[in-house]
């Protein structure tokens, strides 16, 4: 018998019974279907409620708008270049080449949080510093730090929920205070951040700020011993830059930086804090006690700055999980989420730079305000 589905060749000695043919065809179909469903589930297409990097970045865009070619968060920033002068003191704890005595070139970026590259510098009291150390052995260390000692939330889901709560109401163009209030009420872990932000003022300079790693990492020494750490950059520029009220305009941070660098390099000390046993490494909302031991690992020296549209930091993704041998990620759940979301942001903005079909189209660029 000839089934239309299966052109059984006439030369074939053994024909399948009709029922057998149906079952065997169904089995093949089922194997293929199960494989497709498993693939769709793992890939997130069949799991619409899973938090994915794409959903986080979509929410960042919903909050701030889409600005083609720009980072989806910390969109407003400037490039800086210089080097890190290691004094060798962190070598005991990490055998990363960057901590051997000597110089490592750095391409960095100062920025302010938020997805709008034209936001006024005074719109947030937080500044950020991102660095890429290019080690002589070809490895890299990338880090993104913020000028606050603790992060508001501890998990990617809470971060996403916070973004969602802060999404502007289409009617008012501003976040709904009820939703924001409900979010913070439901997230008591935000208390330390809220206490800090109450006293924080937008600084008038990037140079006078300290920058914290927020997330914990693990240093691995030459014997393979692991040391949980956090780090921060402590400025040498000690003059009180004051708050932004003194500065005019909306883009005073870049002007200030250019002016300071014209007078000479700016310096920060890289302080590495060693955890005591039991200090939380998986919770960026909790500062470690202030008596923890700090190692001064060396000096970050920044010598030049360029606008981000043409500077060398533009096409660098400051993924905090690009780490050299000797530094590893901790169990902080924010780290893989940052890495994943930054990758999505990088793909979107480079796709826009490449003018690939389906990407957001750039509006005529507003004149840089000064």
């Amino acid at each position, binding site marked *: 018998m000839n089934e239309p589905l299966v052109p059984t060749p006439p030369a074939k000695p053994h024909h399948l019974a009709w029922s057998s043919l149906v079952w065997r065809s169904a089995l093949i179909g089922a194997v293929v279907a199960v494989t497709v469903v498993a693939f769709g589930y793992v890939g997130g297409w069949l799991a619409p409620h*899973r938090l994915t990097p794409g959903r986080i970045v979509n929410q960042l865009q919903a909050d701030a708008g889409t600005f083609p070619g720009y980072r989806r968060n910390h969109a407003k920033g400037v490039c800086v270049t210089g080097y890190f002068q290691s004094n060798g003191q962190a070598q005991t704890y990490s055998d990363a080449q960057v901590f051997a005595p000597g110089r490592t070139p750095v391409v960095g970026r100062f920025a302010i949080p938020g997805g709008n590259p034209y936001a006024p510098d005074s719109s947030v009291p937080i500044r950020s510093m991102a660095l890429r150390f290019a080690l002589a052995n070809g490895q890299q260390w990338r880090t993104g730090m913020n000028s606050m000692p603790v992060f508001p939330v501890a998990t990617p889901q809470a971060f996403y929920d916070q973004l969602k709560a802060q999404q502007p109401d289409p009617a008012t163009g501003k976040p709904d205070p009820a939703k924001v209030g409900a979010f913070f009420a439901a997230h008591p872990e935000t208390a330390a951040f809220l206490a800090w932000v109450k006293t924080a003022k937008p600084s008038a300079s990037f140079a006078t700020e300290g920058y914290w790693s927020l997330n914990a990492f693990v240093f691995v020494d030459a014997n393979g011993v692991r040391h949980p750490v956090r780090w921060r950059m402590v400025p040498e520029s000690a003059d009180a830059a004051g708050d932004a009220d003194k500065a005019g305009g909306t883009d005073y941070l870049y002007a200030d930086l250019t002016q300071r660098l014209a007078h000479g390099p700016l310096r920060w000390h890289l302080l590495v804090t060693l955890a005591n046993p039991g200090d939380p490494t998986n919770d960026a909302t909790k500062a470690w006690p202030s008596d923890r031991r700090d190692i001064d690992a060396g000096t970050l020296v920044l010598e030049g700055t360029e606008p981000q549209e043409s500077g060398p930091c533009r096409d660098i993704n400051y993924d905090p999980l690009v780490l050299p041998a000797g530094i590893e990620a901790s169990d902080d759940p924010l780290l893989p989420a940052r890495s994943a979301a930054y990758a999505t942001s990088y793909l979107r903005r480079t796709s826009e730079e490449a003018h690939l079909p389906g990407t957001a189209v750039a509006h005529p660029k507003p004149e840089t305000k000064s």
Partner: protein
Amino acid sequence: MNSPAQFTLAARVLHWLMAAMILTMLFIGVGMVASVSERHDWLIRIHKPLGIAILILAVVRLAVRLRHPPPPLPADLPVLQKLAALASHWLLYALMFALPLIGWAMLSAGGYPVMLSESLRLPPIFPFSPIAFAVLRHAHAWLAILLFLTFLAHMGAALYHGLIRRDGVLSSMTGVRFRRS
């Protein structure tokens, strides 16, 4: 009609080993880009060295294939199916080479160090270029989907040969011959 010939032992071992690796790789790939959890990080750590391992094995496999041509398809197989078999096999070979190379080139173009382990680093094979990164990154994803679809067709066809046509094509690769019921 049974084809009496089988693939050589080397070809069969390479086929099944790489089948497992490639299928694992496809699931790791779609899983890691859709995850924000620790899975994202450790899947990427597997993805890169596994991809390079597949590339190396693909070179070995191509050499084995050229040295030992595969057994002929059944003489009574319709021409269209023969063509589809031939085309899909060469497409699978092309993708086995293309995906790891594009992944490597993509990381190079993005300015990332291409780390296969904590300290083992491959040199860049493409100049730093955000535009090339974007193109290669999309190509990597779309060709991976094409590889998955080709794999599905390949698996479906293999089962069709083994369960319905029962013409010896599947057993030429499994190396196992079942008696017909």
